[in-house]
């Protein structure tokens, strides 16, 4: 390049950087190199992808049906109370509906958030701990929900 390369934007103060001492460039996040990524050779991601689509189809029915029953039909949201819940969970059909919805929605949502963490968390440590938090919350919610559906006692005082 010619010697006439005066800087495009010349500040009036002295520049910190010159030819021998260039400014640091902004590295792209998690750059691919010769050594990364390591191969895992499992089908986990494929099954995860399939699960999102299949559970999504079932969730359309379960979640929309759930919202309709809870919030629209029969007087809307104001009818919901202990008695209403007790009445529905007396039937194995609604127990099964809610159990399947709980599991599918939780696993679907958790896998979705795992995708989001993989996308946005840059450092390996951050990724690890965010996922641990996610898995803990998921396991806790799924187990607690399952426990309640199976051990619900309408005569509790």
């Amino acid at each position, binding site marked *: *390049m*010619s010697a*006439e*390369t*005066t*800087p*495009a*934007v*010349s*500040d009036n103060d002295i*520049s*910190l*950087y*010159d*030819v021998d001492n*260039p*400014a*640091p*460039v*902004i*590295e*792209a*996040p*998690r*750059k*691919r*190199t*010769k050594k*990364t*990524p390591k*191969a*895992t*050779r499992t*089908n*986990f*991601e*494929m099954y*995860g*992808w*399939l699960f999102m689509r299949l559970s999504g189809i079932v969730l359309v029915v379960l979640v929309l049906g759930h919202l309709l029953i809870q919030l629209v039909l029969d007087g809307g949201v104001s009818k919901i109370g202990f008695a209403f819940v007790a009445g529905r969970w007396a039937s194995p059909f609604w127990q099964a509906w809610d159990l399947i919805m709980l599991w599918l929605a939780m696993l679907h949502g958790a896998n979705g958030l795992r995708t989001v963490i*993989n*996308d*946005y968390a*840059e450092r390996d440590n951050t990724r690890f701990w965010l996922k641990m938090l996610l898995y803990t919350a998921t396991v806790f919610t799924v187990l607690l929900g399952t426990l309640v559906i199976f051990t619900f006692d309408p005569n509790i005082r």
Partner: protein
Amino acid sequence: MATPTLEKTGSAAQASPYITVTFRVRRFNPEVSAEATWQDFQVEIDPKERVLDGLHKIKWDLDGSLTFRRSCAHGICGSDAMRINGKNRLACKTLIKDINPEKPITVEPIKGLTVLKDLVVDMEPFFQAYRDVMPFLITKGNEPTRERLQSAEDRERFDDTTKCILCAACTSSCPVFWNDGQYFGPAAIVNAHRFIFDSRDEAGEQRLEILNDKDGVWRCRTTFNCTDACPRGIEVTKAIQEVKRALITRRF
């Protein structure tokens, strides 16, 4: 500094096809500053010319320090993918008249790769992903004495993906790649597709296995940015979905 160097005689002005266009270029020079800044250039240009011609006028007549890559200037080499008015395109295939010259035309480096200077980015991670899908013919057995023949239908199967010029417009338009450079990205998948569906090639399984991994095709979220960006008109998203389908059908 933005003095037009083009001499014009008053009488010829009416017949002249030239208009004045503002190029708003993203400048970065680590030898001067750690900050990237926008710089405006006024350029006299025929609207039937291309953005690349505008950049040439700037570099040759206004500011020799403007740095960008170009080689063929005719949409073949894939050197000059850049973000023009917020969309990834080849500067040499984008006519000024097609991108509203009334307003300033913004020109930035493609995203998701390290900017080295002005519009020049480090393409190494991009080419690493390309190399990682083994983009070459792999066969077993003896070398045939004549061409490896193929029917027209078999050739048609991967025709679209043979057109890639490795410009990186697709990969650098992908939001997953912006955030995580470990993702193979659309261009590598396109070039794997080109061999996976080639009847003469015998390493399709191996390439599918590579793309089945955690940074392979399953990270694609079907945003279609890549298809919109491709200057060769390759249906990039479709090619990625065909690889997904091949992976699923080979198991079920």
